[in-house]
């Protein structure tokens, strides 16, 4: 039998109040082992209080080749930013 352990992505919350952030990846036979390995590899020095693991194949990623059509339309929409609007100087804190 020859079947390799799948790849998992590891996300760690460094402390409560912060989001989980991508820390890296590892191979493990199942989710439980992935979690245990993530704990040993990525949190040896108090780096986290919570870990997520997700099998890499379940992540759908955008393709950098499509970055133009995906992200460029936002560039000419300055009206989405507060500085687009002209207000008299007397108005403070808005």
């Amino acid at each position, binding site marked *: *039998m*020859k*079947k*390799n*352990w799948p*790849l998992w992505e590891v996300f760690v919350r460094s402390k409560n109040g912060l989001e989980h952030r991508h820390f*890296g*990846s*590892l*191979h493990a*036979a*199942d989710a439980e*082992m992935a979690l245990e390995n993530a704990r*040993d*590899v990525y949190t*040896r*020095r108090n780096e986290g209080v919570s870990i997520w693991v997700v099998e890499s194949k379940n992540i759908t*990623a955008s*393709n*950098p*080749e499509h970055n133009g059509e995906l992200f460029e339309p936002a560039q000419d929409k300055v009206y989405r930013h507060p500085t687009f609007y002209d207000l008299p100087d007397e108005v403070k804190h808005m």
Partner: protein
Amino acid sequence: MSEEQIKNLEAQFEARIARDEKIEPKDWMPEKYRQTHIRQMSQHAHSEIIGMLPEGNWITRAPSLRRKVALLAKVQDEGGHGLYLYSACETLGISREELYEQLHTGKAKYSSIFNYPTITWADIGAIGWLVDGAAIINQVPLCSTSFGPYARAMVRVCKEESFHQRQGFEIMLKLAEGDPKQKEMAQDALNRWWWPALMMLGPTDDKSVHTAQSMKWKLKRKTNDELRQQFIDQTVPQAELIGLTIPDPDLKWNEEKKGYDFGPIDWDEFWQVVKGHGPCNKQRLNARVSAWENGQWVRDAAMAHAEKQELKSNNKAV
């Protein structure tokens, strides 16, 4: 893609790196960039896990509990560093299996320093102080290299590595302060590790084939000779501080260049070790291959268990 289109993409790519932009795994990259990165990152990963072997040799014989927990933690870190680097390498589309295969068949290299034996406890001190010291000098500039996953892995590695050198220096310091026999042990370790540590920073610039390209891609920010000079200048005063003598009769401060002049390095020895004729090449590779092969049934069993569990939970869901 036509040749001209590729040229165009390459020009854009080089410009991005020149602007200090990072390259991420799914971005277009020249095939040579991919191959060079796979080669360097995997060599680096292999060095981390082979590097566990000479030190692992002393875990059970560490002279105190304090030394033992520190050495255990250090060796565990090295396993972790290997994993960070293998993962970064895998983002370029090569599998872990292939990477191991390259190591086990001798197709891929690892740092030749790990082919030297650890004969006494002082060798553990010398490795931390000199080998990790040289590694840090090599690695710090890599934290800002152009390939995102490599740079991120190196940030973590460097953060963890700083204790490694300190624990090694502390071992040397204590031995040097000890009785004459202990001091002699420390000096003997320094004598044996000094030259291999200098060689570890790579062939001289005129013999280094990859330097120019690697500098351009920020895989290298300083040349081998610059790194070696930096290492020597930083290490000599540390040896003086603990009363040990660097085993180089030609070593002399050069006021003009504000650095040390040093004697000739035995590059024949270096190439012999690289080619597989060092004192421990066979031993290291055998240990690695047998650990991998003898672990096969464990990996298979874990996989079989995982599949069975999944089947069970699927059946329950129906």
